[in-house]
């Protein structure tokens, strides 16, 4: 099969999967959960309920509701986000950049720490450094994210300040709104760090980074283990191959063999897994964002599900799954491009 045929086949399947996702979400949030919950409080007049139902179309048969929902999806008319307190498209447009910023920083930290650890682990196979890095990565996989987040908050926003008088890192939020007003910060793209750099507002950029650092470390810590183990095993695999033995027997220096010849091939699976991690994180990290009250996609979806804001749930799940399947497809294509041995 040619590559473009493969891509077309995958795209067709992708549409099928996305339709399934919308159907599943619809059944969960409209049929099994009561969509009225988001619009009715204890102070709502009971006489108003039929009107509210009619207004949102909840009184229609389910299949009609589902088709209206699909239509709205294609016209990007997704209604009102109750938990986001704004139009749905706006809600996603404001929350997505927050998650994207967090994801990028988390992935950068993951790779900076994870890949070197993996290489060291492979080169010192079964020595002390290897065992240490293996245990470290296993701890990363085993740590409860909420506990890690809370502990980081305790140490970096409270303990270092009270015990040593060091400046504390902010524990919640995305930026300091007072600072934003005082320095005349304006949103352009929604990426706070980028926006403040464009405006030459270094104080604001620093503040946004300070808000990002703890949640990013939390997310990175969970993934460092994955990347380290993968780099290690793939490096060990590559080092065993004939072309490496040959390069060594030519008398090429160790450094050159490892960093020029071995690492290139060893990093191919790392690239693909990093892509998948990226896709997973872009959908929003529910736990991390809730603990740090970081207003990203995960935070939005958490609130949406707890208050059963079915509109937001439906929109969020679709966005998150589109990101997931598209990233999956891109990763597979990139994988084939990096490693011509792979056939479809």
């Amino acid at each position, binding site marked *: 099969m040619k590559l473009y045929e493969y891509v077309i086949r995958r795209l067709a399947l992708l549409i099928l999967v996305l339709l399934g996702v919308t159907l599943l979400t619809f059944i969960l949030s409209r049929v099994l959960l009561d969509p009225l919950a988001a619009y009715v409080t204890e102070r709502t007049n009971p006489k108003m309920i039929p009107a509210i139902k009619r207004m949102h179309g909840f009184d229609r048969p389910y299949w009609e509701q589902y088709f209206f929902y699909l239509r709205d999806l294609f016209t990007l008319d997704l209604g009102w986000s109750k938990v986001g307190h704004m139009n749905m498209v706006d809600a996603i447009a404001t929350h997505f950049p927050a998650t994207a910023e967090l994801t990028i920083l988390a992935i950068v930290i993951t790779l900076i720490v994870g890949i070197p650890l993996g290489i060291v682990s492979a080169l010192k196979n079964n020595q002390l450094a290897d065992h240490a890095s*293996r245990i470290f990565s296993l701890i990363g996989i085993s740590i409860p994210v909420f*506990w890690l987040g809370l502990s980081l908050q305790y140490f970096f926003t409270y303990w270092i300040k009270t015990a040593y008088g060091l400046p504390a890192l902010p524990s919640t939020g995305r930026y300091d709104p007072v600072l934003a007003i005082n320095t005349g910060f304006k949103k352009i793209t929604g990426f706070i760090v980028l926006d403040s750099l464009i405006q030459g507002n270094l104080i604001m950029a620093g503040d946004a980074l300070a808000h990002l650092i703890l949640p990013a470390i939390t997310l990175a810590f969970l993934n460092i283990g994955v990347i380290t183990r993968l780099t290690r095993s793939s490096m060990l695999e590559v080092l065993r191959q004939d072309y490496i033995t040959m390069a060594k027997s030519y008398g090429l220096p160790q450094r050159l063999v490892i960093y020029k010849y071995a690492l290139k091939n060893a990093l191919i699976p790392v690239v693909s897994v990093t892509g998948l991690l990226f896709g997973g994180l872009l959908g*929003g990290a529910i736990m991390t964002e809730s603990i740090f009250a970081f207003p990203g996609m995960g935070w939005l979806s958490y609130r949406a599900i707890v208050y059963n804001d079915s509109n937001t749930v439906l929109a969020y799940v679709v966005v998150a799954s589109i990101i997931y399947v598209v990233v999956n497809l891109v990763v597979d294509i990139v994988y084939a491009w990096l490693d011509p041995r792979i056939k479809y």
Partner: protein
Amino acid sequence: MEKSGSKMRELRIRELKYALHLFSSNKLVLAGTAIVLFYVFLAIFGRFMVDVNEPYMLDFKNALKPPSSEHFFGTDDLGRDIFRLIILGAAYDMAVSIFVVAVSVAIGTVLGSISAYLGGKFDEAFMRIVDILFAFPGLLLAMAIQMILGKSLFNLALALILVWWAGYARLMRGQVLAEKEKLYVRAAKSLGLPGYRTLFKHILPNAFYPLLVSATMDIGGVMLSAAGLSFIGLGPTPFEPEWGSLVNRGAPFLFVAPWLMFFPGLMILLASLGFNLVGDGLRDILDPRLRR
């Protein structure tokens, strides 16, 4: 026939002995096994070591006391001893994670292998369903199911099963697809063995190892998810001292009484680490390519 049968058995025993030898010479696996056994012990005998009424023994005079010789891990906002709550909580966490993994593995094995064995349209349709579940944000799905069924520890387990089985189904399908083409399966077919018998008696035992490894490691992962869900507040009642819910109770007192959230979280970390150490070692042992 007889002779080759006994020879096979001998080979199998030798293989098992060798695996056991590798198992016991790997320090990390031994450490993991020790941790797991410790937790299993806590889960089974915890209720005999401390008063089972501890979650109900409110003592507001002694609320939020730091760790001391009297209260090893301090007391919570209701004056309950955290050390004793943690011991009682072991049963909940262990039961939920082992139950979820066992049921998910069973469902995944059966559905995945049948799908691979039948192949064709059925397989194609089945894999699309699995794809949908994969594309759906897992934690959110579990949360939604919990919201539908109501908050309880059992419903939490059900929600997690619905999220986790798809992974095993996919893994098992791949395994069976690979085994299906092998000579012994064709031999079985030509002998006229019925399909279900070939599948369950001959293919499954050969395809099961990778599932075993991933299941062991997943017990740790499921424990994290379960604790996470109950940390969010979708889990047990305040009188079931599941560790995630203990951390949840401790979170508002983070800067006043950090021990409230610290010790239960540490217990989750250690338990999950134990299972991961064992699973990691098992993979090295069971995969002949990694042995050297």
